[in-house]
């Protein structure tokens, strides 16, 4: 990839939580390097505790890695870059005391969008995710799927080049995930955003991604990167094709042993997960 095409350059990133010798010491990531192309949707998949969320937080500047560098464009990442990177989290990160519209506008307040533009942008992104009719509802009045749509709308309205999504559909049921996945694909086909998407679901990874980076068990590093050569927007029927099944099977084979390894050491996996969350 030429320099202009690389949105995010990750070099030899390692991260550990705690100090060596302490009880809560855990090595989350080990020597991870990756180039993320502009406009691609890259999925990070791997067993629990393999450090995928850690890597996402490092890319987004929410976490300083123990070693290694991340560059967005030509800029080294040293903290959050709200004008370049927007997040969608798995946990409901909408402010419960504000309406959907207020939540979306607030994101722009933080980023520094001029007052005059805020409402128009908010309306646009709410329409894009299909929540125009629910702009004045409170998060507690919405279903899980709708809340994640709202979170996505908030991220979209920030009009960043990069979108980082940490298992955004993880807390939702299978059917909602399916619908949201299809809608996401349609939405993103229209935009030029670079997206990094962390997921546990093999099917979701194959359906959404241009490339899938498979992580090993803790300490995580990238085992292999699989390409999914299929144009966006992905048709729902893609899931039933042989190509899809083959790709999914490849992922399964790559992942299965790693998942077993992670479960066996599941105590540590929980520690990484807890450390990532704190």
């Amino acid at each position, binding site marked *: 990839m030429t320099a202009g095409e690389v949105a995010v350059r990750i070099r030899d990133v390692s991260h550990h939580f705690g100090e060596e010798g302490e009880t809560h010491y855990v090595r989350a990531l080990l020597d991870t390097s990756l180039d993320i192309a502009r406009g691609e949707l890259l999925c990070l998949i791997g067993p629990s505790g393999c450090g995928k969320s850690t890597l996402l937080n490092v890319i*987004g500047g929410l976490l300083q890695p123990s070693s290694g560098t991340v560059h967005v464009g030509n800029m080294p990442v040293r903290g959050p870059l*709200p004008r370049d990177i927007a997040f969608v*989290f798995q946990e409901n990160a909408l*402010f419960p005391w504000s309406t959907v519209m207020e939540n979306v506008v607030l994101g722009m*307040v933080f980023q520094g969008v001029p007052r005059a533009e805020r409402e128009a942008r908010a309306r646009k992104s709410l329409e894009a995710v299909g929540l125009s009719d629910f702009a004045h509802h409170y998060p*507690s009045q919405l279903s899980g799927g709708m809340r994640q749509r709202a979170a996505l709308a908030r991220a979209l309205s920030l009009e960043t080049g990069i979108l980082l999504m940490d298992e955004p559909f993880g807390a939702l049921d299978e059917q909602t995930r399916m619908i949201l996945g299809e809608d996401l694909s349609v939405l993103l086909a229209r935009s030029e955003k670079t997206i990094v998407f962390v997921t546990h679901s093999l099917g979701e990874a194959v359906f959404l991604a241009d490339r899938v980076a498979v992580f090993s068990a803790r300490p995580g590093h990238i085992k292999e990167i699989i390409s999914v050569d299929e144009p966006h927007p992905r048709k729902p029927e893609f899931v039933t094709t042989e190509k899809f099944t083959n790709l999914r099977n490849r992922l399964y084979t790559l992942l299965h042993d790693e998942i077993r390894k992670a479960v066996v050491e599941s105590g540590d996996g929980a520690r990484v997960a807890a450390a990532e969350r704190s």
Partner: protein
Amino acid sequence: MMPASDAVGARDVAARTASRRRGGFARTVRRHPGIARLGAVAALFLLWEIAARYWVDPMFLSPPSRVIGSIQSVFATRGVPAALQVTFWELAVAFAMSVAIGLLVGLAVGLSRFSRHTFMPIILLLYGTPQVTILPLFILYFGIGPASKIAFGVSHGIFPIIVTIVAGVQNIKPILLVSARSMGANRWQIFRWVIFPHMIPSFFAGMRLGMTGVLLGVLLAELYVSTAGIGYFTTLFTQNFDPTKLLGLISVLAAMAIVLNEIVRRAEVHFGRWRAE
């Protein structure tokens, strides 16, 4: 003269009708516990009435009928309305000061993890001490006028407010702070748009508890020694063995307390709306 079988039959019908009628009434009461509650309260008042009239020396207890009838005379007693005003004013000032001080201290302590760990133990220690033991000290320092009542009220009111505000600031979901930071919010924005709105329901809960504390503090101080507040009159009526006026005055005070508590409670319900998730 009916044949025996008819008499029995008639008796049965009468019994069944009576029980159905009874059943109807019982069913209504069962469906509306409020009625039973009213009945229980009425029964209590009845007991009080009977006891006061027939069993107890009128020097010690007065029946509710007489108390209600003489409420007017309580207000007519020279100085009582003024004393009620003074007491109410003491409560209002103490509450306002408690809220202001409690909010400031609560935020100062709660917003920084270090100050929380350092000062909360001290605050909790003070909260747990029986302040009533130092009531004479308050009188010594602030005099026997309203100042000591207000001070003692504030001393009781600030602690629940501080504690609830610190809790409200502390138990914010970390993801909300991370999310705001990721969108570029600076420290002031995080406080104004994330921490502060999150803390509001706790603040109102704290105010409700604070009102209870203020009531306790001010009334304790009033009952201890008072020249201008209602404590003067409770002492007067007690020493004069005037249970009628005493009960009347206490009822008025209880009503005042109920109203004040209800106001804060309603405010809490209204402003804690988003908590319903």
